[in-house]
């Protein structure tokens, strides 16, 4: 045990910081600072810039353009990017499909899809949830029936982030209605330009436009687009949900938002009661940071297990507390609807209420906090 990072890691952080200061475009910096909605366009641009330095997919193996960094270094990297003022570089393609393809895809599939994800050129949507199947994902009903060299896909996906601006979607589909729910599901890659696909956007309560419904009506998907074996999709997805969960603890975003809070506080007069709450939250943030570092350094060789669900629960609570503090800091200025805020809005405060509303999603997506707690109770506590 040692309190400080070694010199190597400290140097690494300042290398990342220097690079961001030189390469982050001003408009992206400004959007990230104010908490504005980023769309696919901005994400793609930032991904391509990172790729020019070999940094767009740090978690992937080196042979696919990754960095080969240790989990600790990757964590420091993600954190430093945000603290240096950059937007996040996460997309379903980078964080979810990439690792799945690398683990279970054929060489052809890897060659075909990985490079354009790495460069930020293709965007992928995650087509898992359905209207009747959210927490109980294994009950999903979108069906794929083999017809020669194709699957015919019919069904209805919902909450599909960025479907409206994605070229591709990876989806869970039912290929064997007779088997037990988890054993009859396959993992398919679907071209969003296929005939029979209709995308309906869903506006979120903060005014965001990331979410969609996707209707699939006799969509023909080549059998080459199946990942791994038929009816084994659930196993691959579970591998993937594990990835979503560690990232979703979101301590980097929490830190970034906490520093935003401190910056805004330093420019205003603040009541002692508010300072007290902020200090309480800072203690929790220190704790969260330490928990993450402990997970990464204590047993670096062990695979992430159900403990990740605890990180998600605590991490999302922390994030939501910070967003609430930010909204509270805005005071009456928070009354403004960020999309129609009038001429006299204080730009630094404009998006705080919307950011708070948006942050309510982090305890819902990627498996709700209730489902995470069920996992912990069973798999960690043995109840």
């Amino acid at each position, binding site marked *: 045990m040692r309190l400080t990072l070694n010199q190597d890691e400290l140097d690494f952080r300042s290398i990342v910081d220097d690079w961001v200061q030189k390469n982050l475009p001003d408009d992206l910096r400004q959007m990230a600072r104010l908490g504005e909605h980023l769309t696919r366009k901005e994400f793609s641009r930032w991904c391509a810039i990172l790729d020019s330095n070999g940094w767009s997919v740090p978690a992937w193996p080196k042979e696919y353009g990754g960095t080969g960094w240790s989990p600790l270094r990757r964590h420091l990297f993600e954190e430093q990017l945000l603290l240096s003022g950059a937007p996040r570089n996460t997309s379903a393609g980078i964080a979810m499909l990439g690792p799945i393809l690398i683990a279970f895809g054929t060489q052809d599939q890897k060659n075909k899809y990985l490079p354009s994800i790495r460069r930020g050129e293709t965007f992928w949507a995650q087509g898992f*949830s359905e209207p*009747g*199947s*959210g*927490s*109980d994902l294994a*009950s999903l009903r979108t069906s794929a029936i083999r017809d020669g060299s194709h699957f015919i896909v019919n069904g209805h996906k*919902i*909450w599909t982030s960025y479907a409206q601006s994605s070229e591709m979607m990876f989806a869970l589909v039912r290929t064997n209605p007779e088997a037990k729910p988890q054993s009859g599901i396959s993992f398919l890659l679907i071209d969003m330009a296929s005939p029979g696909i209709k995308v309906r956007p*869903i*506006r*979120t*309560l903060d*005014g965001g436009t990331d*979410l969609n419904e996707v209707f699939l009506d006799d969509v023909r998907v080549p059998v080459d687009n199946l990942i791994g074996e038929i009816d084994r999709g659930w196993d691959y997805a579970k591998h993937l949900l594990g990835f979503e969960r560690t990232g979703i603890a979101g301590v980097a975003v929490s830190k970034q938002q906490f520093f935003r809070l401190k910056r805004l506080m330093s420019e205003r007069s603040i*009541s002692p*009661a*508010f300072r007290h*709450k902020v200090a309480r939250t800072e203690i929790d943030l220190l704790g969260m940071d330490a928990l993450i570092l402990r997970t990464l350094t204590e047993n670096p060789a062990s695979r992430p297990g159900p403990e990740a669900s605890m990180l998600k629960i605590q991490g999302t609570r922390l994030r*939501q507390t910070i967003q*609430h503090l930010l*909204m*509270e800091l805005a*005071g*009456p*200025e*928070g*009354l*403004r*609807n960020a999309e*129609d*805020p*009038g*001429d*006299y*809005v204080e730009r630094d405060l404009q998006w705080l*209420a919307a950011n*708070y*509303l948006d942050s*309510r*999603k982090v*305890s*819902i*997506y990627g498996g*709700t*906090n*209730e489902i995470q*707690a*069920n996992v912990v109770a069973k798999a960690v506590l043995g109840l």
Partner: protein
Amino acid sequence: MDFSLSPDQILFRDSVDRFFNETFTKEDGRDKAVDWQALVDMGLTAAPFPDSMGGTGANTIHLMFVANGIGRTLTTAPFLPCVVMAGHILRDCANVPGIQPLIEALTNGTRKIAFAELSSGSITQTGTSSIVSGEARLVLEGSADVLILASANHDKLVIIEGKAKGVTCSPFTTLDKREAADLIFSNVAVNSIIAEGHQAQQMIARAQRTMKALLCAEACGAMQATLELTLDYVRTRKQFGRPIGSFQALQHRLVDMRIAYDLADTQTRVAIMAVEEADSPTIVRLCAAAHAQVVKAARLIAEEAIQMHGGMGMTEECRAGKFAKRLITLSILLGSEDSAIENFLLSA
């Protein structure tokens, strides 16, 4: 304390409930002018004024039922800013020349009247007239036809036409889609001061206290509806082959929401009684207590309602999210829980 309602209050509550339930059922694309006219037709814009001013003489307890109804149905018509806040000041100034016609115009719905206070600048008296220069930020219904404007320290109250020369009105919508504006006054000439000094300060303090208690009541209406619709949702939404409301993990939290609501609604009623019996020495303390409970419960209920609706709760169409935005807006208008606790301490 006696929480029982008189037969007259029960009659009023039931008719107000019926009115809101029947009139404000359709949610989207509601025409604001039609909504406002409905309040006028129901006689609610006349509520706070006595008979002698052509009003219906409703007291704070009656107004509480109206505020509950507004919150429960997410009505956007500006009852609180215009009828409660501006209305109470007009009522208290009724014998000042020129005020009675404004009361009539507000009552019969021909003109909207809002209250604003200068955040910077001043009202300067020059002989018989006055000059206003300064800004009033974040004014609910700030684009109203007529403004009752207070100086920053509340020692002067004047009437300004919204369209008067020198008034710049920059409108915006609030988080919960209501109308508000920032106002800039540059050398606006006004005829007369309708109240000044200690008298003006008392008047404003009284109206603001009533306004705050009724904002709490509006929040209670919204909380009640949010709780009901969340209960409906968990009874019908199924996952893992059973209603999600059958999971104890959610049940216990719904119980906590109910307890928080009961406390908030009860303490709001206490505050309403204190405001109605205006000479109560503990009025500030009781209002601060209601405020603290309401803001705390509003956050809990709004956040839990969204959470229990899952992905649906994050959508703009979902009622849970709309109520959450109303509850957040009301909490911002009331001020933070910290400020309520601070007021509570100061009142001791």
